[in-house]
């Protein structure tokens, strides 16, 4: 294999150049990306991001199993001296792989589920609102509601993540926010298609979603998952699609509520809390501040930082389509994160992304880390919620 001569594929190269808007060309192969990639911490044969980019630079798509390892956490891009948008390169390479039918097992089913069920979880669309049956959530009405609460597929279907949505509902109600949901009409944001590299299908999904939002007159939405929020605020505009509404991540919205004095917390016991920066909230969107401010607003919270936090935070391993691929035990980033949180002296590991929550809680269980509780920020805040007098 290695003695085979590589022939430059000019057509593919020009296409890569165009697909990545030139991003692929700027790399001068220093290898920081490979060194930064968290796979290096868990695998003997790490993900050579540099080699993948080099292949892209030569137009050699090639079926490379490591291509599907990428969690799109962007740790590589954060340190890249050339400022290469490496996620863009990865997606372009994955697109070539789709075209050449060199896709990891199980991934086509995700896209088919998006097609048939409007969600990647292979769940019936009719069950989208099952989690909120008892909550009596109003259908969004632009005339009445301040915001749309956008639940997203994971919080709609995943049992653990549903708790986050429920907690958030209590918080919003506690703050007296008037909000609605789209219910079964809620569209999938399509981020899973994007990070799996099916750029064409993602475009379709984005257009569909935008149409639904437009039909419902959405002017402002609150997303639970940073992945959805990233899609609305960054991926849609990158498609040159007009996004007519303001999208916020729920931590930002909670921060606003706290600042406006609409949301107040009561004192509980003192607890050491650390925060897992979700990649799509932090590195990819630059929001490190809001979630920490919300945590600091909760009395008794002693915020401690893990050594790697902020731009250096370790990915949970759930992005980039990895939620739908099997990661063998011993290769899960989240397994590393639990001891890091313990080392920082935290009793509670708080995050603000359904993927992080699922992965980290799993790892905490595996590690039998009885002293460390993994919880979403919405849930944590909910525990300290000063019940408004008018609450149900």
């Amino acid at each position: 294999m290695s003695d085979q001569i590589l022939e430059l594929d000019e057509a593919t190269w020009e296409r890569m150049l165009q697909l990545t808007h030139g991003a692929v060309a700027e790399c001068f192969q220093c290898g920081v990306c490979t060194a930064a990639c968290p796979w290096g911490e868990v695998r003997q044969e790490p993900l050579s991001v540099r080699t993948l980019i080099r292949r892209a630079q030569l137009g050699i798509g090639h079926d490379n199993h490591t291509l599907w390892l990428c969690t799109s956490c962007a740790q590589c891009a954060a340190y890249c001296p050339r400022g290469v948008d490496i996620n863009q390169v990865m997606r372009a390479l994955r697109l070539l792989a789709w075209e050449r039918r060199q896709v990891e097992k199980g991934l086509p089913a995700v896209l088919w589920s998006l097609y048939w069920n409007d969600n990647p979880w292979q769940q019936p669309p009719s069950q989208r609102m099952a989690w909120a049956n008892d909550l009596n959530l109003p259908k969004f009405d632009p005339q009445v509601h301040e915001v749309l609460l956008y639940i997203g597929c994971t919080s709609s279907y995943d049992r653990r993540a549903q708790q986050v949505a429920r907690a958030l509902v209590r918080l919003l109600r506690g703050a007296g926010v008037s909000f609605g949901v789209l219910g079964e009409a809620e569209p999938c944001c399509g981020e899973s298609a994007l990070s799996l590299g099916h750029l064409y299908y993602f475009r379709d999904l984005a257009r569909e979603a935008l149409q639904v939002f437009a039909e419902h007159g959405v002017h402002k939405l609150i997303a639970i998952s940073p992945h959805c929020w990233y899609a609305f605020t960054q991926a849609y505009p990158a498609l040159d699609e007009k996004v007519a509404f303001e999208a916020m991540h729920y931590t930002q919205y909670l921060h606003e509520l706290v600042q406006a004095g609409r949301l107040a917390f009561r004192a509980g016991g003192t607890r050491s809390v650390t925060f897992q920066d979700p990649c799509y909230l932090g590195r990819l969107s630059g929001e490190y501040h809001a979630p920490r401010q919300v945590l600091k607003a909760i009395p008794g919270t002693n915020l401690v930082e893990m050594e790697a936090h902020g731009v250096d935070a370790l990915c949970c391993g759930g992005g980039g389509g990895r939620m739908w691929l099997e990661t063998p035990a011993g290769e899960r980033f989240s397994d590393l994160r639990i001891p890091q949180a313990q080392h920082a002296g935290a009793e509670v590991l708080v995050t603000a992304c359904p993927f992080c929550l699922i992965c980290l809680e799993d790892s905490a269980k595996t590690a039998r880390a009885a002293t460390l509780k993994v919880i979403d920020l919405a849930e944590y805040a909910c525990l300290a919620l000063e019940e408004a007098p008018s609450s149900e």
Partner: protein
Amino acid sequence: MSDSVLVIGGGIAGIQAALDLAEAGARVVLVEREATIGGIMAVLDKNFPTLDCSICIEAPKMSEVDLHPNIEILSLAEVDSLEGEPGDFRVTIRQRARYVTSACTRCGECTHACPVVLPNEYDSGMAARKAIYTPIPQSTPGAYLIDIEHCLSKPPNYLPCTHCLQACLPKAIDFNMPEETRHVRHVGAVIVAVGYDMFDPRLIPQYGYGKHADVLTALEFERLVNSAGPTGGEIICPSDGRHPQNILFVLCVGSRDRRFYHYCSRFCCMYSIKHAYQALDHGVPQVDVLYMDVRAYGKGFDGFWQRTTAEGARFIRGHPAFIQPNAQGSLRVVYEDTQRAMRLSADYDLVVLANAVTPARGLNTLAQRLGIALDADGFILAQEAQGGLVMTTRPGIYAAGCSSGPKDIPDSVSEGSGAAALALSHLKARHWPQAVEVPSLNGVENPRVGVFVCHCGSNIAGVVDVAQVAEYARTLPDVVFASHQMFSCAGNTQKEIEEAIKREGITRVVVAACSPKTHESIFRGVLARAGLNPYLLEMANIRNMDSWVHKHEKEEATEKAKDMVWMAVEKARLLTPLQASHLPLKQSTLVVGGGIAGMTAAVALASQGFVTHLVERSTQLGGLLSRLEQIAPSGIRASQLLEAKVRQVKKSRVRLHLGTSVETISGVVGNYHVQLSDGSHLEVGAIVMATGALPHQPVVFRYGEDPSVITNLDLEACLAEENLSGERVTLVGCVGSRQGKMGCSRYCCTSMIHQALQLRNMGKKVRVLSKDVRTYSRGAEELYAQAMRAGVQFFRYDPHLPPQEAITYVSPYESGASRNGGGYVQFYETSLGREVRLPTDVLVLVVGLQPQEDPMVEQLKLSRSEDGFLMELHPKLGPVQTAVEGVYLAGACQGAKDVRESMAQALAAAGKAGALLSRGVIEKEPLTARLIPELCKGCMRCVRVCPFSAIEQVGEPGKGGSVIIHEAACMGCGTCAAECNFDAIEMPYFTKPQIMAQIDAALAHEPEKKCLVFTCNWCSYAGADLAGIEKRQYPPSARIIRTMCSARFEEDFVARAFEKGAGAVLITGCRLTDTGSDCHYNYANRLTWKRFQHWQRKFERQGISPERLQLRWISAAEGKEFAEKIAEMDEVVHTFASQLTEPGR
């Protein structure tokens, strides 16, 4: 019209500019923000690639600036405002107070007394200083100052601390100085040479700088290896003081990084290679370097890299993601070895970051005050099309050195000279210092010696019994007067000496005080004022070389002082009055070569008003420039630049000789005789060689036979006509460069990328194959990034092979072309680790530059470097001079260069030549060699050894007096005098009888217990001085004799010493290594080395064991090494002396 130039910044670029201007008769105001001039070069340990000791070669220039009557140094000063126009600027300068007056004797007592301890900036904060301190031992002007912000007596001082006031006996501390003084100066031009700052690596938190003590910046490492640095030159881990077992050097920290500085910082590759070399040299077992491209672009740089690799340094292509402490407390570095495609997590004891070069802090404000523009990166914006990088956006204001972007020392020096050349064109009046006319004393032929012994407060008197020394001096022959004084250099004491000379009829003066390096000029002034020839002075350095270094052996120190005074008296008795000579000089110049360098130099010289002849072999001006379409990276049209230059040549009345060559050339500096092929005969004072270089003519890849193979110069013609058939173009770099003795050709990477981008913009598919991408020059890295973004594809081929071996090309004209019928290029791609095949219709060979053949070179006795290009006088500080006085180098004849580098160097050559010519005479210090024709036997040995070709054979060999010494060309090293077996050459002030008398005096008592040490003036004497400044104690057995150069030492000196029974003899001089020499006389110390080998063999045969005759190179920064060596020699002496007393021997 003003006669002055303002130079802002006293680093090496500013120093060079100031010296060239002053030499050319301009008055200079040198403004320096810090307390001392010297800049970053003064902080550096060694210079690449020659490993010259940095301060050794810079300190003489610093003191030259200090002593030059035309230069006013304003330290601790900043420019406040500037108004007016070229020729007539009015500038205001704010100067902070030093609080120490010129009465300071550099004794250092104040520093001991000061209770305030602060981090020392010059050691990057790794060592301490006091609130009253001297930044570096060589501090100029003045040694000590008070950091008033941290001083306990900072006004209003209600409870003043007076420790220093009490300690300072000469009362040199004055707290009543106004905090700030405003100066107004009128100047004709301004040179901005403010240097650079460095990127704070804390901004890359992943690298742990500032968090972990063992992550250092390059400058911190520089101090760590410096023997005058905080650890005395030991490489240690700052965290716990252990010796590191391995070190990692990381390149491009903050440079070539879109997050911080996108440009290349240019010289970090080379200093990191130097650091790697030094680390290995210090015995660090493992040394790794993480690089992206090794930009070893200069003369001898690639060779130095190879040597460092051969010594065992590992160069790994990669860049770290994290540098973090590991469990063992050392550092874990995570990076990818990109050539092996392996992610590595390796542990290092020490990590050194080559942090980016950034614009000097405050440059922004200064630029506003001066009204000049900065570029997007914050460096001074250059008007490249007009004057290389030296011209700013405001007429009359010029930039030099790193103020217009990162540059290494020789490039900064060149620009300093170049800026000086341009600044001179704004001045009308010139001045040269005139000797003060004092009626001479009579009876000078009779030696009547006066001895003045200095207490230097308690610095000398606290150890040496000065009264006893003065008493002793009175007993010496010809001594008519001896006294001791509190501070000999103090103003009133100087007067005392003056009066004593007149009163006592003293005709020879011995001052037993401190170092002649700092005080000789002061006492020479005293003599001159008293009407005595200043060369009738001899100093005995009983402070730096006696009281400071033997403070616990008071009696021995007093005995040594007596010996030293006696030695000085013996020499003084034999001193004769010497007169500076004024030699005739023709104020006209010859510039050879009409390319861009030649034209630039000629125009600059003609506009300074000199008759300038420009000789060009071909019938047109332009040289290689006329074959170019655009100039990379600026994209300036070559034809535009050429036309503009030709216009300037015509306008400035340069005398053109086209289609003409130089037939013969003879003579020496000031008076060269030139015969041209057009029949004209020229008499010129200086010559600028601008003969350029030849593009390599490839014979590989069937160039010339295969129509699809062209060179980059052929391509240039195609681009001009926008006519290139073939869609897929592959450019191959390093054809004819970087192989064998040929180094990097500098211009080609940038030029190649520029062409590639042009082709890409024409819609072609363009590939570039190179070894490293060396886009080091200003704007070039940006061009590289632009080309990448545009879709030019870059590949790396095996850097160890020449392109024809690393790359196979199958032309579309050949059978066996690839499957789609086209041609292709195939090679092993190092970043993929695979053979790659690239479809190719046109193969462009990017050729290097080669030296020209020229008979003039032999006639002028110019040397060539290993690569065949003409050799400069010094690779760092003499980039445009040659070993032949009056001959200067401009452009690619000295080494491959691009257009703007050639222009900068041409301006520098014009500046240097202008400085020589402007005065109309050559003034020589009277230390040059004198021939005694009646003793000469015509053996020609002196002709062969002279490092400056200053001795010419004029008659038959073997006939007496058949040589002449050209005083104008002689630099006074004395190599010839030491070589002459017949004593037919005399070195004034260092004559053989004088040195013999010193030897005799030194060894008169108990010679077996003494070690005679010969030092050269520049490095080893300065090293011995430094040992004193640093108070490094060593045994009092050494007796030091100074000459200008170690090549002055004769066999007879050594013979006499042993004849007298000396315990040992130590020969010292500037450092000489495999890589270079610190020698101030063009490698003359190589001869010292050769002679020493011979002496050791010879004296061994005479029964002198080799340990009694030793040689040790000592740099000016090696006080510690000097002290250690003397201690070692003391043991030799001791053993020898005890053997003598043993019965039966």
